[in-house]
């Protein structure tokens, strides 16, 4: 068990980071901290994917010297997934940030519970 963890330390770190990010996104009150949590969570997934795609001693799949042997290169698909994931996460983060700005302009607070209280008071 312990040996297994030590061998796959990259994945372990990724999972721990995912947990940290997830809890932050769920439990933080402050919107900015929530968004940071979201980014940690997404990054953890990329770390995980990159770790899975990497094969020790192999290089990035850019063909030089007509070397088509699969033993030379790492698996390119996870890298592609990471790139796609980054695009998605960037756009989601941008959306969240813009929403936060809207919220802040209106209520001058980053605390979502505070906003709810305010809304109740307004009776909207």
């Amino acid at each position, binding site marked *: 068990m312990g040996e297994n963890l030590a061998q796959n330390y990259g994945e372990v770190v990724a999972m721990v980071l995912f947990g940290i990010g997830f809890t932050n*996104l769920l439990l933080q009150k402050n919107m900015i901290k929530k968004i940071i949590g979201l980014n940690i969570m997404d990054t953890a997934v990329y770390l995980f994917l990159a770790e899975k795609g990497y094969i020790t001693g192999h290089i990035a799949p850019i063909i030089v010297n007509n070397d088509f042997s699969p033993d030379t290169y790492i698996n390119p*698909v996870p890298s592609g997934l990471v790139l796609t994931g980054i695009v*998605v996460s960037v756009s989601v983060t941008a959306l969240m940030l813009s929403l936060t700005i809207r919220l802040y302009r*209106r209520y001058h607070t980053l605390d979502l519970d505070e906003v709810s209280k305010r809304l109740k008071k307004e009776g909207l």
Partner: protein
Amino acid sequence: MEIILNFPCISILLAMFSAIISSALNGKWAKYLNTFVVTAVGVLSAFTFWYTYTTKNSYTYVMGHYPAPYGNEIRFGSLEAGMALFFAVIMLLSLNGGRKKIRLEIAPEKEKLYYIMINLLLSSLLALVYTNDIFTAYVFVEINTIAACGLIMITEHGRTIEAAVRYMIMSLLGSGLFLIGICLLYDMTGHLLMVYIHSSITKIMAAGTYQIPLLVTIGLIVVGLAIKSALFPFHAWLPDAYGYSTVSSAAMLSSLVSKGYIFLLIKLIYRVIGFRRFYESGIVNVLFVFGLAGMIMGSLYAIRENDIRRMISYSSVAQIGYIYMGFGLGTSIGMVASIFHILSHAATKSLLFVSASGLTDVSGGHKEFQELTGAGYRNKAAGAAFTVGAFSMVGIPCFSGFISKLLFAQAAIQTSGKTLPTLIVLAISTVLNAIYFLKTVIRIYTPVKDDKYEAVSSGKNMLYLVTLVCFIVLNLALGMISQPITDWISYGVTALI
């Protein structure tokens, strides 16, 4: 007729490109383009549906140059095509029903953005329905979320912004779990295409390795999608989001967005995990319990509510509970019942939202019940449509809701051990539904002396009237000629694999 096989791909691309083109148009033309695209997608899906239904075959369509198992694929049978058709129809009706409100509630310079979001929503829904690649599914899940968020916050209102933020947070939690789930799945199986993952999983299971990680993965994916589709207790964002956004948004969010995720989950269950394995994993029991809890709690919340839109929203929580309860029964009949309920709920709930907007309009824009007194006389068409929707929700025979309840009950009776809880909760939930929906119907048909608000004649807004009639017909059709539909669904789920 080979050309029909291109239609699913074309419809996705059509919706997506129209979103891009719309950004260069003004609001009016964006509206026309959107109407055209939704109609076109409907027609294309109808052809695809007809073709797949008559040939009784599923087709795989390779996207790009790489063949399986590396490339990206679309795969469609009659169930997928039928769903796409249904989504397009509901979307068109919801938009038409709320067209006037869109003009009133959305700032003119933002109207174009609204239609961009709708095009994106359509393309992502179609992609969720058709795709055979789990990572593509993830990407479109996120696009769907962003588009839905846009639909919520397009009306400038404190509540909608708050609701949008809450919706985003919940959704992101869900998609985070979903993402890590599919990464783990990829890690274990080495594939991204659903069919190949399935065969790998079968091999893994036969070898007896990775049992627990596989279970965890299935759990992550299912829970992720359940959160996104607002299964109780992950529904906190729902009443604000549905209650304060513009009416078309509310109708589409409740009948399409959450259903898109659920349909993806159904595909994953059948095509990736395998129904048998899903059943044996025990996750069905979790879904079952949460589904039952949702059925009761959603209705209880709805009874307490004094705002008609929020009441209908809470009723969605209950209806989503029904669908997950059907999953939880763990039989294919239960699954058929759930899919039928997706259709029936989509048709009914958007009808309710659209007709409720007509009722609030003739009550000075108020959504509280005391102001709605007599609204059924002031807007006769909306009143009648709301009554039909309420009857369907309560489960009066001849309306669609009755058939789904009948199917759920039939499915429940065939299980061992889940029969009694299901039937009891079904009965309680139906009585609760009856309380709040019929209370509302009575309220809107209680005449008031010297009415404060003016009546409108239904002939004034033809588009609205026609939409309501279409919705009612759809509802009655689902209720009265359900046999071919259930036959189609039960054939369709077997063809998913």
